């Protein structure tokens, strides 16, 4: 597969890993922001190719993991209504709410349907005129343009039986919140390459300057991630702190302008609560006033304010990069993918799930 296989070449990867080994003279702690990058690191064992002392901590870039629990509960409540068809990306189906998940709601008779593109939800609404179709719109900036397009099309085409439950999150405010937290030990970032494909790299320049951290916009294949790490440690060793673009085959400095335009048309910036992190100002997207008619929260009047049950789950510190899944006493013992205590174990991009799946609960022999 072109533009995939070349970036999984073992010889190229090892060459970059050797260069990293030659570059590093002292310990460094980097954070890869995106859950997809965490997944790749675990799956390909990239961290095992790095020199000792170079630590990768995993960031909050799993939009499924950080969706506030009340949005899961709202989705479940809306889906339970007999007139509703709830459309969702499959990623959200197994995320635990206060009391069960969307899969459980489906098995109790709720009409919950998996879709692959937000426009599938519009097609369903047009085909099922007597039902209310609600699209559970989550994700980072990568998915926001596609989700915006669904609302845009609904308005243009007069699809009145369609609405969206929106819980979008933005990366730069989360990075700032992490960097501002006392005890933060992240010294450099691998920024999320697909988020930046949409948004460009400009938003990260003030962050690099304000916090004096190098930020390397990085892709998702092993060669991408290793090159991103190399570029980041080169900056650290040289005392530089700027934004660099490793993923230049996809990321333009100004990003994707048509995509940003539709996001500005359909969405507005809102405060957002991040599961495991807390409230971050101006870190979310909600529907703009002009699209208010398509807001499912308004249409269905769901108001839920529930405190999440306190358990021994430490997905919050894991999402903040303060500790690794293996630091959790419940990891692999009381918390497994079959019986998850928290979202980072159940989401396919969650750090705990990635560790469990690719490292098991036992150590594997080194190469």
């Amino acid at each position: 597969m072109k533009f995939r296989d070349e970036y999984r070449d073992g010889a190229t990867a090892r060459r970059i890993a050797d260069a990293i080994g030659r570059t590093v003279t002292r310990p460094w702690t980097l954070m890869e922001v995106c859950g997809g990058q965490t997944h790749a690191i675990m799956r390909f064992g990239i961290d095992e190719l790095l020199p000792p002392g170079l630590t990768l901590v995993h960031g909050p870039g799993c939009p499924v993991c950080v969706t506030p629990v009340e949005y899961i509960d709202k989705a479940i409540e809306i889906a339970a209504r007999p007139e509703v068809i709830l459309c969702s990306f499959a990623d959200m189906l197994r995320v635990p709410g206060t009391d069960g998940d969307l899969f459980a709601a489906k098995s109790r008779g709720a009409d919950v349907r998996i879709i692959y593109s937000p426009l599938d939800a519009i097609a369903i609404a047009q085909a099922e005129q007597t039902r209310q179709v609600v699209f559970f719109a989550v994700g980072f900036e990568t998915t926001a343009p596609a989700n915006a397009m669904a609302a845009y099309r609904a308005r243009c085409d007069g699809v009145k039986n369609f609405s969206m439950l929106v819980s979008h999150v933005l990366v730069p405010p989360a990075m700032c919140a992490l960097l501002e937290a006392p005890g933060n030990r992240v010294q450099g970032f691998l920024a999320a390459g697909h988020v930046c494909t949409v948004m460009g790299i400009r938003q990260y320049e003030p962050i690099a300057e304000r916090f004096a951290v190098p930020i390397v916009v990085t892709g998702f294949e092993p060669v991408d991630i290793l090159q991103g790490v190399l570029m980041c440690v080169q900056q650290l060793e040289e005392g530089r702190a700027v934004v660099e673009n490793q993923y230049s085959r996809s990321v333009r400095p100004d990003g994707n302008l048509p995509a940003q335009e539709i996001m500005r048309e359909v969405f507005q910036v809102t405060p957002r609560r991040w599961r495991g992190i807390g409230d971050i100002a101006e870190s979310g997207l909600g529907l703009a006033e002009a699209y208010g008619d398509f807001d499912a929260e308004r249409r269905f009047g769901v108001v839920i304010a529930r405190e999440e049950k306190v358990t021994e789950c430490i997905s919050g510190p894991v999402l903040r990069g303060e500790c690794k899944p293996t630091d959790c006493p419940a990891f692999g013992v009381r918390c497994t993918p079959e019986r998850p205590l928290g979202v980072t174990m159940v989401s396919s991009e969650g750090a705990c799930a990635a560790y469990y799946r690719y490292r098991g609960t036992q150590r594997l022999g080194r190469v």
Partner: protein
Amino acid sequence: MTSADDFNLSCPAPAMDRDTVQLAHGGGGRAMKQLIDSIIRPAFADPELDHCHDGAVLEIEGTVAFTTDSYVVRPLFFPGGDIGTLAVNGTVNDLAMCGARPLYLSVGFILEEGLPIGTLRQVVNSMRKSAIAAGVRLVTGDTKVVDRGKADGIFVNTAGIGRIIAPTPIRPGSVRSGDVVILSGDIGRHGIAVMAAREGFGFETVIESDCAPVAAPVLALIEAGIAVRCLRDLTRGGLASAVVEIAETAGLAITLDEASIPVREDVVAACELLGFDPLHVPNEGRFAAFVAPEDAGRALAILRGHCVSESAAIIGHVSAGPLGQVACRGALGVLRAVDMLSGEQLPRIC
């Protein structure tokens, strides 16, 4: 007190809709006999069925393998097969995995009221063709009908009997450290085919299920005197679940080499698009064979001489520990753990 609108008459004598299955077809009466006589018995065309008795009476010499499986696939028809082909080949293959020559199958149908008769006819014909291809006889069966909404059209159960021809028991307990793992062919086709048909991914390219009987290459291995320790078909849970189960039962460790595992280009692309790992995708015409290392080369040559296993490959080996652990060496040469997933893989966009 009920109003006039609530009062209605219902006549117990069924008005027969000739196009769809009715509850009467499972009632043990004339309607059911007609269904069996007009559709099922002619298709399976077996002298045992013509006795119209409660069971088949068969003569079998030697040690017998016995297995059963139920088939609930949705949709009923998918590229490369249908519930009928699955129901025959699945059970034939389970017998082969025991080191047995498959001989006889029973068939139990649970039909949903309202199922088009034409659909039943198609499924029964598929079973007939699959049975002929696999060299097995369908010798006894049962039919029940349930209310509309209580079954997905058709559920099928097949049980199978085969004669063991392997000289030593073929099972996880026979696996030893040093054994070689051979995969009979490329993986991932069936799971993608069914899911694409069910969920409507909009793939222009059609991937067909690999559903097929695998008894012939298995029997060839055994008859050639290959030391086959264990066989496992790679159905639900895919290659990963099969290998993990064997490692755990045998109390040994298994290491796979990802680069050696054949996956067809279009299946790779489909898995990338959906965020699937081919190791966990179900197959219906593939198996893993654990053989003694000194027989590995010959075993591979025998398998490659059969159409269904022509792309067989050595994909790993068994070692003494850590107990029950399966690891896969990836593109970068690093080992990663392989385990069963807790549920079915779902497509992801994140």
